[in-house]
């Protein structure tokens, strides 16, 4: 079957359309509107499902002059990610309809959730760099609304803002990175923003990137963007805070969508950047996150917090996998993308069930829930064992492939590279530990304080049960799923050939030993969970000063204080201050522009200036000085008049007959108006403070110098040809406009509309003057 534009476009667009209708529909339909969301997700899921096995790009022009188009691309990876987002979306909407019963603002909630789903589908399928950026930022904005669902709650506000600052900050890095890649793509002769073409000809773009020296900057920026989105060290801290959101949101954002966006982007650009730098940056980042996330998950006291840190850890696993060069890297990353989405979404939904039925999320207050929630217990067992990577559950297969990737990298790299497998095993031991701890909520002893727990309603249990069913399928028949989509997806991110084998290992090898160590050490340590947590708490307290959260808070505080300081200095309510800073910045920017283009100041030709011009202009400047130092208003106005008349004479000397006439009329009128107004206004008696006068004089000198330099730089050379525009008007004035006075013809014929606008300005000014003067006489004061 061929790839169609409309199935993809509708799959992305429908959630947005539905989102726009939500606030209107909600008052009519009520809480059941959630099922409409599920239906929309199902339509998207179905449309995407029809595209499995296809590969290619389709596009419709958007901004042809900039080579920006609505380009959509489908391949295994894009479809896998999009199917996960929409498939889990169906379950989340169904779950939310029951879970969010009786909560306020549901119209807005579902609107944001739908728009979010559309954005994630957009990220998955976009094959245009700008389109990708657009959807990327939309996911950040929507997640801000979703995390800040409890708008009145201070903690919710703080967390939403934190998520926004980190992910949008990452988005800015993405934008710059994208522009670098676009520059290179253009150099290589490919459409600047065409991601599909860039990836197809990645060798050419890569060479162009290296030649322009943009390779490392682009790589680093894209990795920062992905790290911010996918909660990698040290930008992971927004993820656990985001758990203030309602559980369906957490389950959706933090299992399959929002946080996977970064991982997905890394997988996408992997063929373009793979190499030594890529591995040392991405794989190290991933492995570090894997370890830190696992340690923090063990420390957690809240079940959603535990899941959040565990998510960070598993994201680290995927990032690390994509970091390794070998085919195992691509395989592990993609396969775990699928497995993690399934088990983590299920576990979040289970956490929601627990919080809903038991009324607490505190780990130490929960236990022995299997009697009260038997079905949920089975689901949890499947999901946690998969998360821990215990054979034969699905998580084991992908983790085993990661072990193979680390093992291979260590064998070829030697030396320090052996830290990769070591750190992976270390992190995985803790993964087993916290997974078992989560399972223990159901199988441990029941604490005395725990009250009676109701059986969960079907609507809350069915969605996680569906996910558990999918997990079971992957665990029992991994090859079926791999053949359906995972293999294709891995091929899209891989550099060479991929061939995923998942199964229980039958020979002893390095990676197998790693798995054995992981599982046995995990089980052996579990009885000492409390002691281990105590030790970790000690470490955490000792390093509190360098925690990213602390750094974030102090940075934000500094920014806050600085901006308050700047505001009190720059925007203090006096227009004069605004003008002062505005002019200074304008001059600084102009000077920076001149400096960056490194233009030399041309030697001015002084000798040829006619004496008359020098005289007239000197008188003008002297008059201006007299205005500036005028004692009374009347002297000032008169000297201002002198300045105006001198300028009029200057126009005559500069061949501007019409200018001189106009200037003379205007000056005479202005003089009259000034004198009329001044009659009503008293003299000003204020003293000139020395400090301020000096400061203002300094700024005046800066402005004057900037203007001086600008004239020298911008004035045309002597004897330069007239501009084409000037020639056009001179030659066409008579034949086209029927007049010999070129300036008049321009004003009344060629640019008559502009002159009409100008007349309107003068009329408006006249009307305003009239209104201002008559208003007070009618008694309208203030």
């Amino acid at each position, binding site marked *: 079957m061929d790839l169609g534009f409309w199935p993809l476009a509708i799959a992305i667009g429908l959630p947005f359309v539905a989102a726009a209708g939500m606030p209107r529909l909600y008052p009519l339909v009520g809480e059941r509107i959630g099922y409409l969301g599920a239906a929309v997700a199902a339509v998207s899921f179905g449309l995407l499902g029809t595209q499995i096995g296809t590969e290619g790009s389709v596009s419709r022009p958007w901004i042809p002059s900039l080579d920006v188009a609505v380009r959509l691309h489908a391949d295994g990876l894009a479809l896998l990610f999009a199917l996960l987002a929409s498939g889990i979306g169906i379950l989340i909407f169904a779950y939310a309809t029951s879970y969010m019963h009786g909560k306020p603002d549901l119209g807005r909630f579902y609107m944001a959730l739908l728009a979010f789903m559309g954005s994630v589908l957009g990220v998955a399928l976009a094959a245009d760099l700008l389109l990708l950026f657009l959807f990327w930022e939309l996911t950040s904005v929507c997640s801000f609304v979703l995390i800040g669902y409890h708008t009145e709650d201070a903690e919710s506000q703080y967390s939403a803002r934190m998520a926004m600052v980190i992910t949008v900050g990452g988005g800015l890095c993405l934008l710059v990175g994208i522009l670098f890649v676009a520059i290179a793509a253009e150099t290589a002769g490919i459409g600047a923003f065409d991601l599909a073409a860039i990836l197809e000809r990645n060798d050419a773009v890569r060479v162009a990137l290296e030649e322009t020296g943009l390779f490392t900057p682009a790589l680093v920026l894209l990795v920062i963007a992905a790290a911010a989105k996918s909660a990698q060290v040290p930008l992971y801290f927004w993820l656990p805070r985001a758990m203030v959101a309602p559980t369906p949101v957490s389950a959706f954002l933090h299992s399959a969508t929002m946080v996977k966006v970064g991982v997905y982007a890394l997988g996408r650009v992997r063929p373009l950047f793979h190499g030594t730098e890529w591995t040392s940056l991405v794989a190290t980042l991933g492995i570090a996150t894997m370890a830190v996330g696992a340690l923090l998950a063990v420390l957690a006291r809240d079940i959603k917090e535990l899941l959040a840190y565990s998510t960070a850890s598993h994201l680290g696993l995927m990032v690390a996998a994509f970091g390794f060069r070998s085919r195992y890297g691509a395989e592990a990353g993609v396969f775990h993308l699928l497995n993690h989405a399934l088990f983590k979404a299920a576990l979040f939904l289970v956490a929601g069930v627990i919080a809903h039925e038991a009324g607490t999320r505190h780990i130490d207050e929960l236990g022995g829930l299997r009697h009260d929630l038997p079905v949920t217990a089975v689901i949890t067992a499947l999901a946690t064992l998969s998360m821990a990577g215990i054979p034969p559950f699905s998580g084991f297969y992908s983790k085993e492939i990661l072990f193979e990737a680390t093992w291979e990298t260590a064998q070829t790299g030697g030396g320090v590279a052996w830290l990769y497998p070591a750190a992976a095993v270390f992190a995985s031991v803790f993964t087993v530990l916290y997974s078992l701890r989560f399972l223990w909520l159901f199988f441990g002893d029941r604490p005395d304080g725990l009250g009676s727990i109701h059986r969960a309603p079907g609507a809350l249990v069915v969605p996680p049960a569906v996910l558990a069913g999918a997990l079971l399928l992957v665990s029992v028949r991994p090859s079926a799923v791999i053949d359906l989509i995972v293999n294709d997806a891995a091929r899209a991110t891989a550099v060479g050939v991929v061939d995923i084998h998942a199964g229980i290992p039958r020979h002893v090898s390095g990676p197998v030993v790693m798995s054995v160590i992981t599982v046995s050490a995990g089980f052996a340590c579990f009885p000492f969970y409390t002691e281990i947590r105590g030790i970790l708490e000690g470490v955490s307290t000792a390093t509190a000063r360098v925690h990213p959260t602390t750094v974030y808070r102090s940075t934000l505080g500094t920014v806050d204080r600085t901006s308050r300081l700047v505001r009190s200095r720059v925007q203090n309510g006096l227009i004069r201050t605004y003008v002062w800073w505005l002019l200074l910045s304008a001059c600084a920017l102009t000077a920076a522009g001149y400096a960056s283009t490194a233009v030399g100041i041309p030697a001015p030709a002084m000798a040829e200036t006619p004496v008359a*011009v020098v005289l007239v202009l000197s008188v003008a400047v002297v008059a201006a000085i007299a205005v500036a130092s005028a004692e009374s208003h009347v002297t000032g106005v008169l000297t201002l008049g002198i300045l105006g008349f001198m300028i009029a004479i200057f126009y005559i000397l500069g061949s501007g007959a019409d200018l001189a006439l106009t200037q003379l009329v205007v000056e005479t009128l202005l003089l009259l108006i000034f004198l009329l107004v001044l009659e*009503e206004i008293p003299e*000003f008696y204020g003293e000139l403070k020395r400090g301020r006068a000096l400061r203002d004089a300094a700024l005046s000198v800066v402005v*004057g110098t900037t203007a*001086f330099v600008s004239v020298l730089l911008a004035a045309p050379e*002597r004897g*330069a040809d007239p501009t084409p525009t*000037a020639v056009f008007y001179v030659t066409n004035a008579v034949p086209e406009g029927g007049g010999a006075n070129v300036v008049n013809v321009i004003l009344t014929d060629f640019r008559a509309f502009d002159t009409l606008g100008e007349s309107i300005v003068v009329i408006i000014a006249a009307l305003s003057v009239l209104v201002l003067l008559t208003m007070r006489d009618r008694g309208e004061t203030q």
Partner: protein
Amino acid sequence: MTFTLAATVGALFALGTFLVLRDDLIKVVWGLAIISQAANVYLISMGGLVAAGSDTVPILATHHAPFPEPTDPVIQALILTAIVISFGMTAFALTLSYRAYQENETINVTKWEQ
């Protein structure tokens, strides 16, 4: 020639800026007027000022080709517009100052109630 123009433009801009920053509202209006004049001279300098002559004025003596090469008429059209607009602006600013004085009973901008 350019140097003279540049010096004039620089001096006028500097004096105008100084006046705009004063407490006396009337002086602020003067500053604006001087800055508009400076901007007009700036525009003239962009056309390349040449000594005036019968051919340099952009009013054609003959109604058929070949046409002479006068100074840039576009710039003159621009300045003409600018002169009229700045007239409107200055008149409006003055009236506004008058009204501001009526309401606040002072033309010291720092003494106004904020």
